[in-house]
């Protein structure tokens, strides 16, 4: 008489797996839609930072409250993120792999035409262009300074805080 009851055990276990697996599969995902963002212990900008995420990171939604979303990262870290720094759609990216392939097929020498962010000096292509079009030394210097111009992320964060913007809204 006990045999038939035992037959139910695998079935119940299978259903349990289905249900929990189903919940996992249907969990809502959002993506970081900001250069960087902070995960906080609570849902205010005054709460302690418990982690940092970057553009494009996938986050599992655990809960929502007003302008804040409670999320879990791929490594299991949990925290609250300001909702305007997330998107329900995955950022499209910059097609870098395709672009690199295209550049290599066009036979380009990247180092010759690259000005890395913050690097000082016009790149060779621009320098050549400036020579051919007679751009003055003063204007070259202006673009040179512009290219090198940098503002630290912390300064931007402080600027937002001062203005009561983003997650620092009053």
């Amino acid at each position, binding site marked *: 008489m006990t045999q038939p009851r035992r037959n139910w055990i695998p079935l119940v276990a299978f259903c349990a797996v289905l249900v929990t697996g189903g919940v996992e599969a249907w969990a809502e995902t959002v993506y970081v*839609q*900001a*250069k*960087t963002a902070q995960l906080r212990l609570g849902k205010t900008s005054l709460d302690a930072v418990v982690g940092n995420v970057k*553009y494009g990171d996938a986050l599992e939604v655990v809960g929502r409250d007003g302008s804040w979303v409670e999320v879990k990262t791929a490594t299991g870290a949990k925290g609250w993120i300001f909702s*305007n*720094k997330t998107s329900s759609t995955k*950022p*499209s990216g*910059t*097609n*870098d792999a*395709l*672009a*690199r*392939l*295209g*550049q*290599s*097929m*066009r*036979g*380009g*020498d*990247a180092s*010759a*035409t*690259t*000005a890395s*962010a*913050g690097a000082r000096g*016009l*790149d*060779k*292509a*621009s320098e*050549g*262009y*400036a020579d*051919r*079009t007679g*751009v003055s030394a003063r*204007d*070259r210097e*202006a*673009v040179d300074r*512009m*290219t090198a*111009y*940098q*503002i630290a992320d912390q300064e*931007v964060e402080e*600027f*937002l805080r*001062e*203005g*009561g*913007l*983003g997650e620092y*809204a009053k």
Partner: protein
Amino acid sequence: MRNNHVVTASLLALSLTVAGCAEVQRAGEDLARQSGNPRLAGAIHGVGNVVGSLFPIGYEEESSIGQAMALQVVARYGGVVDQPELVRYVNLVARAVANTSDRPDIPYRVAILEHESINAFAAPAGYIFVTRGLLKQVRNEAELAAVLGHEIAHVSQKHILDIIQRSKRLAGVTEAGLSYATSNPAAFKNVIDGAVKKLLDEGLDQGKEMEADTIGEVFAARVGYDPEAYVGLLTRLRELKGDDRALFKTHPNFTARIEAVQKTIQGKHLISTGVILQERFSRMTKRV
């Protein structure tokens, strides 16, 4: 017999080139050249360029285009304003908006052009310009954020790069691939001159301008700036300049833009936050 093998191998390289294998393309070129068949090597090289020109322009090439265009913008608009505090403030607003844009992973930098006209421009790779004349018309930080949001949207949507890519395809350009900037400076100059003409003289098409208004408005609102601020600025500019078609070679008229922005505010449910930061703006721009 050996020559037949070379031709077969080279044809294989040619077809793989079309399929997108850059290394095989180069090996095929070398093989054909070493076997005394420079015409075949040239053909493989040419197909590589054509196929390569169909791929998107990467950031490295974009950076070269943006920097060269920036040189021309600065030269034609009489140089840039040298007021470090003011420049820093405008850049902070731009960075705040760009950080929540659809393309926050590239550097954005803003220069103020020493010019009294009311204008703003964006060249690829995040080179953004506003004129001193425009800054004089702006009344608060939320309006400035909307203007910068519009320019950041041109960069994030790669509007100028699309035009360059399309013109290259239409012209069947091969050797003028931008990576040849140093080896073929004349071709590079043609590409840049064409793009600058489009940016400063002819204007992008009106659809792209409307798109930049819509997307830029969303970027600024994400930071928390009041979305109604842009409507205020556009309305004042309409009063100043009117809706005369002759003035709008480069942009749709103000009435159409105001309507589109209002539609965006409603359609995207952008909340009026009341955050315009007029006091900070006045303090930081008092020497404009």
